[in-house]
């Protein structure tokens, strides 16, 4: 397998312009002769589908929800970064580029990140033109806030609903194309197989989740924008339906999977209350601007109500360990610190897995009114879920799986190792390295969909002769359909005793324990023993009532769990092989004396891309070296 990143040479500021010029163009009259499949209708998918249709291509778009508007992107709260420098505080494309490379702990491609920072500016213009109601100041200009440890205010936001508003913008653009007949939308359709002919992506197989009908769609190119695989942990801030199936099918057909072990754990989520828990809710990071994080100094105090623990018995551990960043230490750092104090037995709440986020000092300083103005809706949400009033008692928070930086390997054109298969948004591995900065995922999804793929896919299609699509009864199509049906029949036929959720929960526990915030060799090896056992159990004992020819949510669930059971294994394998700590990947063996992540640039300054070698065979690890010509390799420090 060859990993040709196709990074244009020359100065980084010019590389995207030059590349766009070098890309061949498709004759406008020919565009409608090409069909493109877009799987996913989140920020990446919806923006791509709408834009490609505007350009004149024939587009079909698929999503598992009942409407493209409900893709998981809708849940993003905080905001979207862009190097507009509207606040005149010294921001620039270069600074956003620099921050993102550094934030990613030097494990991302410079050229990709630079392009991302460049187009970030166009994203805001485009979204405002679509009517996205970003927050404004009294003068009518756009407002910004600072986010995720950045020293400039470059985050655009729409209340706590930024993802929703951006997605609605893209969704409306998409619906417009659907109304014009330029995009055919397939809601409640799940992609279950990629059709590859002679090593080139030619189509997909989908299951109509209402009728169970399996059908194929053939095309000249396929774009996957199916989101991340964070639900491998069972409990995460992702929507329940988020899955790795589409990406995993592509992996098995030859697309390399890059850096699967890079996952982001978000420090401020509402803690688990019990085994019934189905997902975790994120509390916006902005709360850390005014809240102080602490646990009792003594284990014995953990059972007491917070109000009965005197000031001197409280351990404000972030302020203690990181005096300059304090409660604002980056996500991975604060998450690990929380885990550490809970591991010491000083966690609070019924499960002992929680820390306090306390606003009493801020309320005293600014008054309850001011706090309400700033965080009223978040406090309300917290109270709705926990029945606790955060104005009176401190919030309880705990880290949770949130985002996956790893994903299908793509080159500078966002094309995977399978020609004709492009990967966009969280589903690819491209821009965030080993750690994603707050408010950068939305930026990347829209950059890919609105401003990158429309050019780069043209470059690919210009080399494909129009009218050379395979026919719907090509043997490859039939074989892929049969594979899907066989898999469904196999699942339905097991007739065991346990529910799909049971196995998912088991997997989640293992992943969280051994491949979560802290990882070590012994643990990862153990996980690599347990996961295959769970998988075996699953294929023997799962029970799926009903059939494949109807709306069957147990079947949907089981299919996704089956894939997670394999993704989890690859994650552990990747984590085991990456013998260094970087960003979201913390190997306990590689830490400084103060317990900070220690990178090994000598041996691991590269992307690890895994190639599937057949069922049961060990996947092969390929390496794409990373070069840093513009930002110099340096140790992250938040002391």
């Amino acid at each position, binding site marked *: 397998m060859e990993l040709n990143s196709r990074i244009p040479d020359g100065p980084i500021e010019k590389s995207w312009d030059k590349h766009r010029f070098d890309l061949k163009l498709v004759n406008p009259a020919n565009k409608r002769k090409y069909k493109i499949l877009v799987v996913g209708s989140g920020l990446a998918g919806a923006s791509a589908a709408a*834009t490609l249709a505007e350009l004149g291509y024939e587009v079909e778009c698929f999503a598992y*929800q*009942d*409407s*493209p*508007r*409900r893709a*998981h992107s*809708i*849940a993003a709260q905080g905001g979207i970064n862009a190097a*507009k420098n509207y606040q005149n505080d010294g921001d620039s494309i270069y600074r956003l580029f620099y921050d993102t490379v550094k934030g990613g702990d030097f494990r991302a491609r410079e050229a990709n990140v630079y392009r991302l920072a460049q187009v970030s500016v166009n994203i*805001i*213009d*485009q979204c*405002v*033109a679509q*009517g996205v*109601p970003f*927050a*404004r100041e*009294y003068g*009518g200009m*756009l407002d910004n806030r600072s986010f995720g440890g950045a020293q400039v205010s470059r985050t655009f936001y729409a*209340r706590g*609903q930024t993802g*929703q508003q951006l997605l609605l913008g893209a969704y*409306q*653009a998409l*619906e*417009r194309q*659907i*109304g014009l007949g330029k995009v055919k*939308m397939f*809601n409640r359709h799940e992609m279950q197989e990629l059709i590859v002919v002679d090593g080139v992506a030619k189509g997909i197989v989908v299951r109509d989740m*209402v009728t169970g009908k399996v059908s194929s769609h053939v095309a000249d190119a396929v774009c996957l924008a199916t989101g991340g695989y964070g639900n491998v942990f069972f409990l995460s801030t992702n*929507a*329940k*339906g988020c899955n790795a199936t589409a990406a995993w099918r592509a992996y098995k057909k030859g697309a390399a999977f890059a850096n699967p072990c890079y996952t982001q754990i978000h420090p401020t989520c509402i803690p688990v*209350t*019990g085994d*019934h828990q*189905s*997902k975790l*809710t994120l509390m916006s990071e902005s709360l850390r601007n005014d809240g102080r994080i602490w646990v009792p100094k003594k284990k014995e105090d953990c059972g007491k109500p917070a109000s009965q623990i005197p000031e001197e018995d409280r351990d404000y551990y972030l302020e203690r360990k990181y005096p300059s960043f304090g409660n604002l230490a980056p996500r991975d750092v604060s998450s690990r610190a929380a885990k550490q104090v809970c591991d010491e037995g000083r966690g609070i709440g019924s499960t002992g897995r929680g820390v306090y986020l306390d606003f009493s000092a801020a309320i005293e300083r600014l008054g309850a009114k001011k706090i309400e103005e700033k965080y009223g809706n978040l406090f309300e949400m917290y109270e*709705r*879920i926990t*029945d606790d009033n955060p104005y009176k008692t401190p919030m309880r928070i705990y880290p949770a799986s949130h985002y996956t930086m790893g994903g299908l390997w793509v080159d500078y054109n966002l094309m995977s190792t399978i020609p004709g298969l492009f990967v966009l948004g969280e589903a690819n591995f491209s821009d965030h390295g080993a750690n994603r900065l707050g408010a950068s995922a939305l930026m990347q999804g829209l950059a890919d969909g*609105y*401003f990158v793929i*429309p050019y780069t896919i043209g470059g690919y299609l210009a080399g494909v002769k129009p009218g050379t699509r395979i026919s719907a009864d090509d043997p490859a199509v039939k074989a892929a359909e049969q594979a899907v049906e066989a898999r469904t029949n196999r699942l339905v036929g097991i007739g065991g005793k*346990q*529910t799909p*959720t*049971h196995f998912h929960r088991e997997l989640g526990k293992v992943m969280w324990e051994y491949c979560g915030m802290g990882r070590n060799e012994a643990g990862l090896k153990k996980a690599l023993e347990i996961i295959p056992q769970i998988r075996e159990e699953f294929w023997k004992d799962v*029970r*799926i*009532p009903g059939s494949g020819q*109807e*709306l069957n949510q*147990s079947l949907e669930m089981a299919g996704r769990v089956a894939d997670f059971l394999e993704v989890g294994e690859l994650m552990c394998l990747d984590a085991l092989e990456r013998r260094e700590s970087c960003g979201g990947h913390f190997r306990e063996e590689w830490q400084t004396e103060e317990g900070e992540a220690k990178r090994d640039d000598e041996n691991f300054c590269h992307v690890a891309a895994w190639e599937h070698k057949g069922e049961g065979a060990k996947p092969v690890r390929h390496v794409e070296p990373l070069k840093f010509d513009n930002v110099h390799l340096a140790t992250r420090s938040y002391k």
Partner: protein
Amino acid sequence: MEKHLNLTLQVWRQKDAMSEGEFVEYQAKHISTEMSFLEMLDVVNEEIIRKGEDPIAFDHDCREGICGMCSMVINGRPHGPKERTTTCQLHMRSFDDGDTITIEPWRAKPFPVIRDLIVDRGAFDRIIASGGFISVPTGAPQDANALPVSKQNSDLAMDAAACIGCGACVAACPNASAMLFLSAKVSHLGYLPQGQPERYGRVRNMVSQMDAEAFGTCTNHGECEAACPKGITLETIARMNRDYIKASLTYRPEIASGGAG
């Protein structure tokens, strides 16, 4: 504080769009008050699956009140008893031990039941496709700050844009009218300068599509507002009526644009 409840559920079960449905009774035992309503159904479903029966199908995804996917009428109220709260954010502490809970799907002709509590809300997408957008292809629009928007209008637009497209308004309306949903989009775009060029055409097209989908009409009952988890107000409906009247009064058939050659 966590407590445990024993509940009786009366749930609408229907195999598919073609089949007749009926209410089936289930016992939900030892339900923690910390659970969300959907987690309670998860627990009941796990039980049902273990017994080898078909679990209760219901729509859900984000489980944090933003995707608009969850949709059930709980004891006669869309999204249940708590104001401004979606089903996924409703917690079992809103119920008492021994309660009987009736769970039904959204009921409206344009929202046919697909299975159990799942309905097809494609009509909403088609309404948006008929005009709920600003026609601005991806390209290089003017700088975002070139068009100032007063904070008030921007806030009002955001209030309206908060609609999650759940359909509770239709489910609650005695006439199964989609006016609140429609008016939320019309107001969102109508408050912004970017939305002005298409303002009047938009409202005409969207209302026509709503009628074509066979939604009912608004007779100002206000149930929709009470059920809306996102606090969309009746004022948006009035605003849309106003736009519609103006649009109809000033409508002129499109003139084919000449100038070829």
